[in-house]
């Protein structure tokens, strides 16, 4: 039911959020390369997922009085979770999460600066719903497989980012280094490839990159929802002096951004972003992050993979789409050893669970609190470095949160689970086999298999009747989803 074949299952765990029953028909007859194209060229499928909120056969949305995902952060979380479950473009949502982690921006700081509603709007506003620029997450969605240089320019001018990294206080009299540092250290070339003076120079480059409020904008909770802040280049606050870097800024090898007039000074930032985006180390840094995200965070990046991906990135003039297509078709990705050689992020874990176990009468709002306990609250990364990767997702507390979520989900789907396995559960072994088609942990060794069979044997003589199946199908689902094997993707 929720498995196509090991190769496609692997692809959908990494480039999406796992296999749902609906996916089986779509992917059954596709080759790997064809399936990659289907995922990567997602514009071929409609972006209709938001319109399907509230429809039957979908997960539920919980509403307090009004569902307001453009101005309420909890509702914005619900909308994104719903999209992860039901989008026809899973790779777009997956890459949106990648960029959310790469350019990690936290709601809480924005809320302090601008109030809760404006903060939510800056992160999650879907263009056209209200006046003002689209939210940061919509930017990431728009550029999910877009051009990285263009995305960097958009991010540098994104109101949420300007507030998050203190661009508002970056003036020519007192350059503020926060954004200048992070765009070099975290967003592009990375540590060991620059010197401190580059950070100071970068801060000066971005002086005057600021925000302005619409006429009706007020920094509090009761202002007009249509009010907004938007990027402005404040020429009078731009430092017009030369800025020299330790790395080439121009293709002729020039390292100095020459003095420009105030009015033309915004070009300094475009020049620097272009230089950073096309720096060879940026390609390598992104390649290593893509390795962790798509291939494995158990195995260290293969240097040959890093060079190969960085080359595609640079040859493609910083386009991300060819990079991802290359990765998903690469021998590193299709190497069977890489199947389940990755720790799932909480979002991946809960969404895959829901897609495999079921979402009938299940509200995505029930996911928010458990995800926070698992260590990943959407729109609230711990700091600009993003969530700590890999094994750091797991501790006793977060693992308990995961297994207890498995119980919540299994309990909610009890009658539906029993109904679907009834014809397949003539014996305990048949029930386990049926459940393992639906719910797909990493391969189970003999000991956990025996534990599961013992659990079924403890039901007493097997009748396969309603109550027995109700109990044991849900119990099995909970054990499988709560297992260590299932935490790997």
């Amino acid at each position: 039911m929720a498995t196509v074949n090991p190769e496609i299952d692997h692809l959908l765990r990494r480039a999406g959020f796992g296999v749902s029953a609906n996916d089986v028909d779509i992917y059954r007859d596709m080759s790997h390369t064809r399936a990659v194209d289907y995922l990567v060229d997602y514009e071929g499928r409609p972006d209709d997922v938001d319109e399907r909120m509230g429809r039957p056969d979908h997960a539920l949305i919980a509403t307090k009085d009004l569902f307001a995902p453009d101005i309420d952060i909890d509702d914005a979380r619900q909308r994104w979770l719903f999209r992860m479950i039901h989008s026809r473009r899973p790779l777009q949502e997956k890459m949106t999460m990648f960029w959310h982690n790469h350019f990690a921006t936290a709601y809480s700081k924005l809320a302090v600066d601008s109030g809760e509603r404006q903060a939510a709007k800056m992160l999650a506003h879907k263009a056209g719903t209200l006046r003002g620029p689209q939210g940061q997450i919509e930017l990431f969605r728009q550029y999910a497989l877009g051009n990285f240089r263009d995305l960097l320019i958009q991010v540098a001018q994104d109101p949420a980012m300007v507030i998050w990294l203190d661009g508002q206080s970056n003036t020519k009299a007192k350059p503020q280094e926060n954004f200048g540092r992070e765009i070099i250290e975290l967003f592009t070339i990375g540590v060991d490839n620059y010197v401190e003076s580059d950070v100071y120079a970068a801060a000066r480059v971005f002086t005057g990159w600021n925000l302005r409020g619409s006429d009706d904008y007020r920094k509090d909770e009761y202002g007009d929802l249509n009010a907004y802040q938007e990027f402005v280049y404040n020429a009078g606050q731009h430092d017009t002096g030369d800025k020299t870097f330790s790395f080439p800024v121009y293709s002729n090898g020039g390292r100095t951004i020459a003095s420009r007039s105030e009015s033309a000074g915004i070009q300094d930032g475009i020049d620097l972003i272009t230089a950073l985006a096309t720096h060879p180390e940026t390609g390598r840094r992104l390649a290593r992050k893509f390795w962790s995200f798509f291939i494995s965070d158990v195995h260290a990046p293969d240097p040959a993979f890093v060079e190969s991906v960085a080359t595609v990135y640079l040859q493609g003039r910083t386009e991300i789409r060819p990079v991802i297509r290359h990765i998903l078709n690469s021998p590193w990705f299709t190497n069977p050893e890489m199947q389940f050689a990755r720790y799932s992020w909480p979002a991946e874990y809960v969404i895959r669970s829901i897609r495999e176990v079921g979402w009938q009468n299940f509200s995505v709002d029930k996911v928010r609190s458990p995800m926070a306990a698992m260590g990943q609250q959407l729109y609230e990364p711990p700091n600009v470095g993003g969530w700590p990767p890999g094994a750091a997702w797991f501790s006793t507390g977060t693992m308990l949160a995961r297994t207890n979520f498995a119980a919540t989900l299994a309990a909610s789907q009890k009658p539906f689970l029993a109904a679907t396995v009834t014809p397949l559960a003539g014996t305990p072994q048949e029930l386990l086999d049926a459940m393992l088609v639906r719910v797909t942990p990493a391969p189970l060794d003999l000991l956990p298999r025996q534990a599961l069979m013992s659990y079924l044997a403890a039901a007493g003589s097997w009748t396969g009747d309603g109550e027995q199946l109700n109990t044991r199908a849900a119990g099995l689902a909970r054990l499988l989803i709560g297992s260590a094997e299932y935490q790997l993707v």
Partner: protein
Amino acid sequence: MDLSRRLFIRNGVATVTFGIAAPSFLTAIADAQGIRTRNLVVVYLGGGNDALNTLISYRDAAYYSRRPSIAVPAGQVLQVGSDAAGQAMGLHPRLGGLLNIFNEGRLALVQRAGYANSSRSHFEAGDIWGTANPQQSTGSGWLGRYLDVLPRPLDALAAWNTTAETPRALISGTSGVPAIPNASTYTYASPNRGAAATQERTAAQTMASNPASGRPHLAFVNSTALGAIATLDRVALATSYTPTVAYPNGGFADALQTVAGAMVRGIGSRVFWLQTGGYDTHAGQGGGGGGDYANLMGTLGDGLWAFYSDVRNQGLAGDTTVVVFSEFGRRISENGSAGTDHGAAGVMMVLGGSVRGGLHGTAASLAPGHPTLENNSGDVRYETDFRSVYASLLDQWLGVSSVPILGGDFRAGAPAIF
């Protein structure tokens, strides 16, 4: 962002040794460090406590003139003597339990605790107290960094958070602190009840005990699952505790009773985090020593007195230190709705059987224009850097060097609370 967290992320790998510690092994480590049973219980008063009505400068005429409807009458305050500046001070009348501890010499009242340019945002101020960094209040917390320096493997219950969400102070670069808002429901959830639920837990435990040879990452996740199950039993042990005194009703006292249970049962937790809320008293605080604020004081004082009495009866008072703080104090003058708005410096309270009690620091003089005030005399100016109290707790109580944890040396100027 704090340095260790950055390095942790930069390296892109978890450089931490994870594992499950046998309690006996931990005890051995703790014995070697000579701090086997010392506990730190942190109590956060959520919302910004009105410190001027907690510890009252009852002979300051400006206290009454600036708070005409919410001042506590001088005749009601529980006198605790005069501070170093000669100001006569008294506790709120509902803090009788704390007066008892004070009179035993085991309650330190640190006046005007705070930092320069105090934030008036609940969130930012909470993060500043959590990170111990007024300049950059994101990243790990001061108690999280304490956990980071403890020997590995770190016990899963080294710290115990009694609230649902992990506070900034407990965010660690290496360890997750279990959130146990209600110990009696901190259990292994099941879609079933009765025997089937028990059998599920047995099955889960067996599954997690699979050595998973050849798959070290799977073995690691199994170890966290086993650790969680082991944690459950130890938490359950704490909840089976029968206290020696009657605790008041309410969530705060319930949490304190669980903490006492964990201590008496020898669970091994070093740090406990508790919160009691409702301190954002913008309106209707109550006058004449009664009303909403008095209820808050009653919850706090009665709960802490029960806890202190209980652990003392158990012979654990000398191993226990409680520190009470809030993210900021409140304005000196009451507002138009008989409440107070967000202010600056506040009062920290430290109590326990090893604490050197007394009035530390000096009270603000509340008449406008006095140098102990700031913000056009609207607020109390801080005198004692809150990080110096943290430094004493780390250096003198928990037995680790405060300097790397706090990112600076705050030992000078620390009140002599031990």
